[in-house]
């Protein structure tokens, strides 16, 4: 099965790539997609994940042809001193 993996925003700059195509023999979760795309780098639980632009949790199973996106939640703000 073939999966397109995308990294948005500052995560793209951290990872150093914006898009990766993966092929897999067996079903993968979102977390396993990350591991394969990022050379087993740890996936922090606060990174948001979307499959076909729907927000999902990291244990969601990915289907053939899915697009998986990883992006950092923006929680901060600019009210601080």
């Amino acid at each position, binding site marked *: 099965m073939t999966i397109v993996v995308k990294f948005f*925003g500052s995560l793209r700059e951290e990872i150093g790539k914006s898009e990766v195509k993966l092929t897999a023999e067996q079903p993968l979760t979102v977390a396993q997609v990350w591991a394969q795309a990022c050379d087993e780098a740890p996936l922090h639980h606060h990174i948001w994940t979307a499959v076909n632009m729907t927000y999902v949790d990291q244990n969601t199973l990915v289907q053939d042809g899915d697009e998986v996106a990883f992006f950092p939640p923006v*929680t901060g703000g600019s009210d601080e001193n």
Partner: protein
Amino acid sequence: MDNNQLLRYSRQILLPQVGIEGQERLLKAKVLIIGMGGLGSPAAMYLAAAGIGHLFISDFDKVDLSNLQRQIIHRTTDIGRYKVDSARDTLLALNPLITVTPLYQQWNNTNLSAQVAEVDVVLDCSDNLPTRLAINQACVQTQTPLVSGSAIRMEGQISVFRNQLPESPCYRCLYPNPSIPEETCTQTGILAPIVGIIGSLQALEAMKLIMEVGEVLMGKLLWLDAMKMEWYRVKLTKNPHCPVCQDQSS
């Protein structure tokens, strides 16, 4: 409305989506904006200009030199003043026909829920996750619609939570585990216009909620990647295990 108001608001009364009825709704509305920083500045200024009848603005902080790079409601001579005092002056100079109530206090669950219950819409323009989660909880408890915006680095996001509707996800649904690293502009930085984009979008969605026109970003998150100038539109679903909105609807 008198002639003065009709002329002041004429450019939006002309819109079929607004008209006299829409403008009357804006004039009667009460909106709470939490945070008079980067996001709160444009959000409050556009809501004041558009004629929201009563703005409650909340911040316990004072204006600092490093705020002025992006917090356009404050002036250099306001450094050291309470942000809500400085903001109130700007808002009333823009539109003396509205009422502005500055709120200086720090919030706890009780006084925040009481304040939220007084208004029609809440804008979260705060700067940290614990405050965001507390605002969400108060909005879910009181079934008050919440327009949530945030911005940092070269990124921004906005979503609308219509907490009076059982099908709406809440802000907490997005954080099954809310212990995430804190990020503030003090450490991370922010490019000035990004707060302008997100704060203005918050004002727009609040006005649509009040006038009940168009489709708001309920169950949707817009995420801005300013380096690529791309908007991602992510669909959100209600988390069936959410400790905040599931408690509420059961």
